[in-house]
């Protein structure tokens, strides 16, 4: 492996580590604390309790 190859390898390793680091940081800042509960009640209201269209296609209900 030549000196140029070694430099490229080191640069690539540094880039991959940086990518993973940034990703982890983004996850920690924006995603980690966000817990979005699945809103089954909203889905139930939408799917089984209320209509979406009238027989003529006009808005109706909901």
């Amino acid at each position, binding site marked *: 492996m030549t000196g140029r190859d070694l430099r490229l390898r080191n640069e690539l390793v540094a880039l991959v580590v940086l990518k993973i680091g940034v990703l982890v940081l983004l996850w920690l800042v924006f995603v980690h604390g966000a817990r979005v509960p699945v809103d089954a009640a909203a889905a139930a209201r*939408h799917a089984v309790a209320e209509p979406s269209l009238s027989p003529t296609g006009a808005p109706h209900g*909901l």
Partner: protein
Amino acid sequence: MVSDALVDLSRLQFAATAMYHFLFVPLTLGMTWILVIMESVYVMTGKTVYRDMTQFWGKLFGINFALGVTTGITLEFQFGTNWAYYSHYVGDVFGAPLAIEGLMAFFLESTFIGLFFFGWDRLSRVQHLVVTVLMAIGTNLSALWILVANGWMQNPVGAEFSFVTMRMEMTDFWAVLFNHDAQAKFVHTVSAGYVTGAVFVLALSSWYLLRGRDIAFAKRSFRIAAAFGFASACSVIVLGDESGYSVSEAQKTKLAAMEASWETEAAPAGLNLVAGINEKEMRNDWEVKIPWVLGIIGTRSVDRQLPGIKELRVHNAGRIASGVEAVRALETLRRDPADAAARERFEAHKADLGFGLLLKKYVASMDEVTPALIERAAADTIPAVAPMFWSFRIMVALGFMFFALFGLAFWHSLRNTFQDRRWLLRWAFWSLPTPWIASELGWFVAEYGRQPWTIYGVLPTHLSVSTLTVESLYGSIAGFVGFYTILLVAELYLMVKFARQGPGSLGTGRYAGEPSHA
């Protein structure tokens, strides 16, 4: 408030962005492997012209990739913005392949595309070839995961509905991954991409040959495109047949609409080559039929029947009636999850829950359901026949045209006579837009033919959309169409500019139009 306009506009927006996106994708899929072939020859022979070929066609590939790479992201955003209920209902299943695709695209594919362009002077020949191979694999793996997600929309296996969370939950990841529909769609779609890449190289090489410039470069490019294209055209036909068989197993209404099969025929059914479709009276006014062919292709047998549209409507009406029971039981379970009788009733009918939900387009409560409404919802389960029938036929005809074009190009490549066959070169050049037409029609058949479902047999389209305002959709559609049109114009401008310059754009001094070129 969900209105017809909201559903139609949401569909239009997704369709428009998906179709724009798929103008870029097939060329990316196909060009990567053509670059692998060209660079492999360079590594094996050491001839500079093959390096120039890899770099020139790679430049056109790069333009296409750079402009296309952003267009798919908006589709993923739309799942959240325009299809929120869809995302809730099936996100547990659909999200996994999309997330893996994102990782593949952003980490594997984009990393190696970067190395492909910037690694020429920093990597050895073999190392750079390995990068090009990994770029091709990454690109194709991205397509695999998208098509696993789409295959599940066509044939939702490996998942079960939970009345507690009101969503489909994955029960078998491997069933989702190895879903026959997904695998058949994947190989058919990537083959179509390979044909697109091959037509692109063949057409531009033919143009150079017709103009008598960069002959050695163009002849070598033509030969590689002809050989790769011939193999790809054979694949796209064989794998398209497999994809069609998959449809006949999992989506009988789609197949019946594609073939304008109104009646159930005795096995094996004949194939309507062309027909005068009369949707109002549910029959063909005239038809040119090839006996047996549809039955053999669709069932791989001579004794299994393929149901016609009329029979499917009756069958689906029965499923809707059963689905009414499922919805009623679900409503009871939502109020009292411990109700054993409702649980038992739900389990007995839950396979038809999606069919019951089709009625929610028309009524608030299952108590309002009438036999006439069930008939109306059953009629909804059949997509419009004429657009399906003709789109499919044009796509298939183009598939056979590619087979003929590449067959002749390959034959004349072997005999080294293609340069004198100007009719062949002209044919190849004017074929340039056809693979995109075929791909778009293929997607139209796949997606329009799945209607009225977003998830076939599970979730109706009208229940999948977000409750947005129609005005906001007009605005976002205008924004997307404007933005994507700018991208398309930029793509065409750059492509035409560099294609006209030809390999001279590399600045090596070896090609036409360069100052140092003799």
